[in-house]
């Protein structure tokens, strides 16, 4: 749908007269961030493994990378992990879906209608400042300890940053866009869909990134308290059974999921909003 902006990281200045260098060196130079990042992770893992081998730490308490890999293999080959992983994915998926459907239209409207904005701003600020975990007992009291409560906590955690970001984006709308829409006699629906939403998209995607991070925390916390399954519950039970390898393996899966999701949104931000940088 769009021309991707030239990705500068892939273009290397090859000034004439400079000696040629091997391709991997060129790649390494232009990807120095990735190279250093991987290197940092490797150092930590190797140090961890070494301390375990040297007996500096007790592996039954701390586990070590190789044992985690083994645990990971057995968790996936036995299929034991799919249940918890699926449960968490389902909570986060439904929670985020509902969050998107509620927060984006609400944020767009609140940003446009000043009276509504003034009315809701203090409430939203308070709700955003109070740690959402605090609402968990109330949610349990109202909705019980089923999956609904877990999804509800995810929504509760994720929705505020998205509303706040969307609203901020709308209030920063370039007044020229509004004048063009008015002059072209755009109806309300056209205005919201074809002007306001795309103009606010950079803010919305930033909000989604914050939201997902909070949704993951919300889901795990909910699983700790509402022991019904999921990765949080899995890590918790593994730990209390002194199965540190499985617990660490669960944490590692969570970390990968978080990084993948954040990267995904980052990619969307670059693809959909390349125009806002240029």
């Amino acid at each position: 749908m769009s021309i991707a902006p030239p990705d500068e990281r892939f273009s290397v200045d090859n000034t004439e007269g400079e000696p040629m260098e091997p391709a991997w060196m060129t790649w390494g130079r232009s990807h120095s961030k990735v190279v250093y990042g991987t290197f940092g992770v490797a150092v930590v893992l190797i140090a961890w493994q070494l301390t375990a081998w040297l007996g500096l730490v007790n592996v039954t308490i701390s586990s070590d990378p190789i044992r985690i890999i083994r645990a990971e293999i057995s968790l996936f080959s036995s299929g034991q992990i799919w249940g918890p992983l699926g449960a968490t994915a389902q909570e986060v998926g439904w929670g985020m879906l509902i969050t998107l459907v509620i927060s984006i239209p609400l944020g767009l409207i609140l940003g446009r209608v000043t009276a509504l904005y003034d009315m809701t701003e203090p409430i939203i600020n308070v709700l955003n400042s109070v740690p959402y975990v605090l609402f968990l007992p109330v949610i349990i009291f109202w909705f019980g300890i089923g999956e609904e409560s877990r999804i509800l906590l995810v929504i509760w955690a994720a929705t505020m940053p998205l509303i706040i970001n969307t609203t901020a984006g709308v209030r920063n709308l370039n007044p020229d866009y509004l004048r063009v829409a008015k002059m072209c006699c755009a109806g309300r629906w056209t205005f919201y869909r074809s002007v306001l939403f795309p103009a606010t998209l950079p803010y919305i995607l930033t909000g989604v990134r914050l939201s997902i991070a909070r949704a993951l925390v919300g889901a795990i916390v909910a699983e700790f308290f509402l022991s019904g399954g999921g990765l949080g519950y899995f890590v918790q039970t593994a730990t209390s059974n002194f199965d540190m390898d499985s617990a660490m393996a669960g944490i590692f899966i969570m970390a990968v999921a978080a990084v993948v999701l954040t990267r995904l949104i980052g990619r969307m931000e670059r693809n959909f909003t390349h125009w806002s940088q240029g």
Partner: protein
Amino acid sequence: MEKTVFVSQDDPKVANLTSSSVRPEANYVEVDHVSIGYRSRKTGIYKDAVVDLSFDIRRGEFVVIIGTSGCGKTTFLEAVAGLTPVSKGQIRLGGKPIRGPGPERSLVFQSPSLFPWRNVRDNVLFALQAQHKLNSETRQRADDLLDLVGLKGVMDSFPHELSGGMKQRVNLARALVTRPELLLLDEPFGALDAQTRGVMQHELVNVWQAADLGEARNALFITHDVEEAVYLADRILVFSKAPASLAADISIDLPRPRLPEHKRSSEYILYQDRVLNELYTASGGASSGLEPAPKGVSQ
């Protein structure tokens, strides 16, 4: 006006109504003792930007408004566009008072104001989309217009990939694509270098004179530039310094098609001198912040 066609002229009531409501068809825009002002948000003090302005525009006229910076030209144009309400008097379009923007009017903004998330073609199509006029015929028309203003090759490019002159061409195409009866232009070439400006003026004249692009259409064009004004206008209205009122009304009886090389001819220069003189008088002498004489005159 139209509705009187269908009733009998014998009915005395209707005959009365007819005689009072029929206007000379030739007057398309009627500006009737119009004042426009702003109320300061901080102090609440009201200040006029346009005072007691009255004139008519005939159908098919290309009218250029010229005046010193800050005299109230944009304010007036936005009132005609329907973006700013008038405080006193009335502006009528085909006999009906202006209450807001309408599909029969288009505005070419001073800054291009394109949507950066839409490519060139989709920016032009937005005007059609907003007015629910998007179909294969109007799409073709959008492409033809972009071709006409020399943007055929960049229809899929995004605004940030275009030069200032190209953006302003898109702005122009977006305004024209809905076939407006009245085209409003607010210093559309003000931010361009002299050469690009000349090319754009020529293109506007071309589009204006292109037979397939419309019937008798009106244009209201704002500028600082005397040479530009004479080149484009059937009629030049000189606004006084702020708050604006009408200082002079000059008909430019130069034949069309007009070509860029005519700008240096003696007839053009004579008109330019005349407009410049009116502008000096209107703005109360040379010390009023008026720019030095434009190129065409000083040579």
